[in-house]
């Protein structure tokens, strides 16, 4: 199969899945099978692109010209492939998890849920494979729109409120800043194609380029750089599978992915390194890492704590991009993968706890490890990976980012990374401690009965926890692919 067909198929398969899901709305079992089959097909399609990309190729396809000079075009390069592989693989796992969660939690409108989920994944593929900034922007906006019904799934006032913040910040920043930046880029350069080495060098004054960088970085609200981070905690009203795949992986990673992509292919690392304002943005990322961690410690609601942790971790990647070194990009790319596996595990666990015990607040979770040993073990593994402790995959990306900071001579940033690791121990591990070493309720005596979440959910979260360990043992393929972003074979 040629690459261009695989690209188009990767965009269409989830949409065909939507038709199947809606068609099978009266047969829940068949509907879930459709989702699983769709997700698996998507992953196989994306994986089929691995061989040509590893061989140095860039499969591409141009669908149509929307405006003169502005095409709806796709091109697969290593960064996008990493992102697409992670998102499509974790979609399979999340689908398995959802079956347990949605039924166990007796959610309504499940067909609508699965259908919009599939649309969101199609949009994610569009973002990952976009061949120019115009195409990326289109799918970026579709991703916002298609996740809105998922965030507001419950239909309550709280969901409406959360949806308002979510939609307002994401659409607001993307229209006011990102679109402006894109149009300015187009007017000054005359193209928006992602090009190795960037397109802006020498095309505009230092002031304009600096301003563009600021507009882009803030315009990609999905990266949740402070002060445009509030949508992420607000999005936690969504059902847990949404928080897990979309708000720990697909949507937020689409944000940081876009920032990496812009850094490498619009500005180019050489130009980026010369931009004065880059320093300020780097410091802002560092501040976001620390402030979000401190806020996370103060949250009692587990999902909210994880959300602030995500904000903090996303800024690692922004920081990696703003270091403007090859190692920073590689580290950032690896962190996309490492954080994805770690954080999705944590969210899966939070959802499993909710389904099995109806508990959402950490303070209520005393002794829960005895009731749900598998879940809480997986939680601990995921937490260690986020912290960056061996033997978990998170170690490698932190290592790379630390090396990158050293390379760039930003010693303070190494301090920030270390401090952040300490803080993340502070907000993640107390949950494990609470679960395993605290007694549940003093008044309840007698033997503990093991009561895990539905088997589908437990299987999914065990798998992603295992993934964290596998990524520690075999980080090489990922490292290799990430390295190809900055040093292409040709």
């Amino acid at each position: 199969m040629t690459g261009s067909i695989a690209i188009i198929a990767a965009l269409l398969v989830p949409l065909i899945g939507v038709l199947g899901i809606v068609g099978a709305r009266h047969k829940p079992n068949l509907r879930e099978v459709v989702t699983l089959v769709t997700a698996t097909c998507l992953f196989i399609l994306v994986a089929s692109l691995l061989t040509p990309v590893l061989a140095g190729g860039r499969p591409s396809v141009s669908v149509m010209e929307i405006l003169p000079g502005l095409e709806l075009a796709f091109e697969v390069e290593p960064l996008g492939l990493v992102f697409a592989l992670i998102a499509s693989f974790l979609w399979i796992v999340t689908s398995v998890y959802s079956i347990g969660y949605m039924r166990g939690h007796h959610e309504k409108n499940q067909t609508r849920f699965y259908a919009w989920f599939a649309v969101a994944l199609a949009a994610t593929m569009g973002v990952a494979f976009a061949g120019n900034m115009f195409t990326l922007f289109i799918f970026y906006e579709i991703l916002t729109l298609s996740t809105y019904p998922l965030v507001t799934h419950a239909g309550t006032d709280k969901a409406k409120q959360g949806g308002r913040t979510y939609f307002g910040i994401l659409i607001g920043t993307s229209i006011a800043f990102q679109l402006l930046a894109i149009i300015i880029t187009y007017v000054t350069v005359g193209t928006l194609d992602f090009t190795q080495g960037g397109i802006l060098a020498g095309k505009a004054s230092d002031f304009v380029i600096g301003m563009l960088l600021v507009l882009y970085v803030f315009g990609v609200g999905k990266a949740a750089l402070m002060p445009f981070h509030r949508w992420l905690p607000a999005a936690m009203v969504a059902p847990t599978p949404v928080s897990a795949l979309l708000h720990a992986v697909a949507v937020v990673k689409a944000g940081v992915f876009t920032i990496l992509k812009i850094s490498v292919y619009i500005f180019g690392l050489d130009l980026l390194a010369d931009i004065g304002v880059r320093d300020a943005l780097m410091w802002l990322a560092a501040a976001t890492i620390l402030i979000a961690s401190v806020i996370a410690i103060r949250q009692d609601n587990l999902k909210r704590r994880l959300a602030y942790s995500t904000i903090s971790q996303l800024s690692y990647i922004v920081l990696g991009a703003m270091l403007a070194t090859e190692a920073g990009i590689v580290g950032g790319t690896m962190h996309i993968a490492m954080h994805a596996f770690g954080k999705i595990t944590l969210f899966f666990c939070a959802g499993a706890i909710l389904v099995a015990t109806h508990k959402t607040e950490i303070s209520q979770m005393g002794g829960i490890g005895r009731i749900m040993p598998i879940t809480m073990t997986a939680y601990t593994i995921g937490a260690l990976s986020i912290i960056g402790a061996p033997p978990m995959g998170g170690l490698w990306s932190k290592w790379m980012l630390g090396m990158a900071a050293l390379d760039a001579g930003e010693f303070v940033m190494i301090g920030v990374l270390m401090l952040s690791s300490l803080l993340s121990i502070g907000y993640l591990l107390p949950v494990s401690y609470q679960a395993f070493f605290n007694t549940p309720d003093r008044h309840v005596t007698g033997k503990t009965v093991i009561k895990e979440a539905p088997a589908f959910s437990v299987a999914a979260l065990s798998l992603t926890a295992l993934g964290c360990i596998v990524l520690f043992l075999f980080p090489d393929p990922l490292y290799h692919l990430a390295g190809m972003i900055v040093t292409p074979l040709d």
Partner: protein
Amino acid sequence: MIAAHLPALLIAIPLIAAPVCLLLGRGGLAWAWSTLVSWLVFGLSWLMLQKTLISGPFNYELGGWEAPFGIEYQVDTLNAFILLIVAAIGAVVMPYARASVNREVPAHKHTLFYTAYLLCLTGLLGITITGDAFNVFVFLEISSLSSYAMIALGRDPKALTASFQYLIMGTIGATFILIGIGLMYQMTGTLNMADLAKRLPAVEDTRPVMAAFAFFIIGVSLKLALFPLHMWLPNAYAYAPSVVTAFLAATATKVSVYVLYRFVFTVFGQSFSFDVIPLEPILLVLSLAGIFVASAVAIFQTNVKRLLAWSSVAQIGYIMLGVSLITVAGLTASILHIFNHAVMKGALFLAMGAVYYQVGSVQISDLNGIAKKMPYTMFAFVIAGLGLIGVPLTGGFISKWYLITAVLERGWWPVAVLVLLSSLLAVFYVWRVVEAAYFKAGDNDDVEVREAPLSMLVPLYVLTAASVWFGIDTSLPLKASTEAARQLMGIGG
């Protein structure tokens, strides 16, 4: 033979059809007749646009009398495109009208209604096609008088005051236009636009010509609802029957904008309009003020039709902003937005018409939970609403993209920022409706409300689909508006 007389047929057919409609008597027949005529006119206007795109502008002498003695129709890409918009909206709205008019207009007035509609259509087409300044005034009055009548047919008693208000303002506007034309005639001795364009430069420093320009522009600005001359519009749109609102919102102000283009660029000429008279800063400031004030007012409306009407005032601001740039790119954006806005706003008003048909009200509070009962209607509303915000893959995005590109080409960075910020205001007012429809529990659950009939849904979805289609396949509107803008600026053929 018929092809040669396209321009005359385009006007003659609806004009003659109007009295025939009156003779047909019963509502059903009158409706069928006006639908047929609308479709015919749509076909003719399509042929004409193709003709101009292929073989360039052409003139048609009415009755074989040579200009400047006879009346001449001048067709170029610009007015062929506007004609197509008007005719297309008419053709889409008419099948919808049957159910809606049955619900909103007393039965014995149906025939009158359809007759008025045909006259209004004739007037709008006539304004657009004619090459004679006085003829513009005549057709303007035909369309205005018939729209006053149509607005007054609204079920709400406030429709009468709204119509009266519009009548007063509209008449002032028309009088100003007439004074302007009179002064021009006095100074040049001709009413033919091409002739006027030739003779005006010789007398352009005289006070009567400047007065003519001022009267004319203010009159047209009233008709096109340029801020702050828009006060008639929100009430007229809010209380008119739904079909009338959808039709007029998508066509009437747009045709007035066309008149402005024609006189500013073709008749008076760019150098007079922008060098002798400082039209550029005036339009720039008024359009930006209009965008912000009207969008802000829209956010606080409780009646969705009024909300959309205020949004129309804001959108006129975008259209006029494009004009104030005085570049091909700016005019392209302006014309493009005329087209895209007609499609989107038409769809939005049709959706509200469907809601009115079922619920009997378009107050936001009465729309609570409506999405459960009318899912298709509200989905169309959301899609068209996204177009208004300017989300990618909708026509609204394309026109916004062009407008901002054009603004940046002139180096007006702050204006570009303002335009983008203003589109965030659209998020607020569109989302207020969406939240009410999707998240609030309905208070009137006992009232039986069902999805609108198919005859309303199909036209609604034709426009909604068009708003998405022309956000993806932009070739037709883009080609037509670029070509039209070039002709207006006098570049190329």
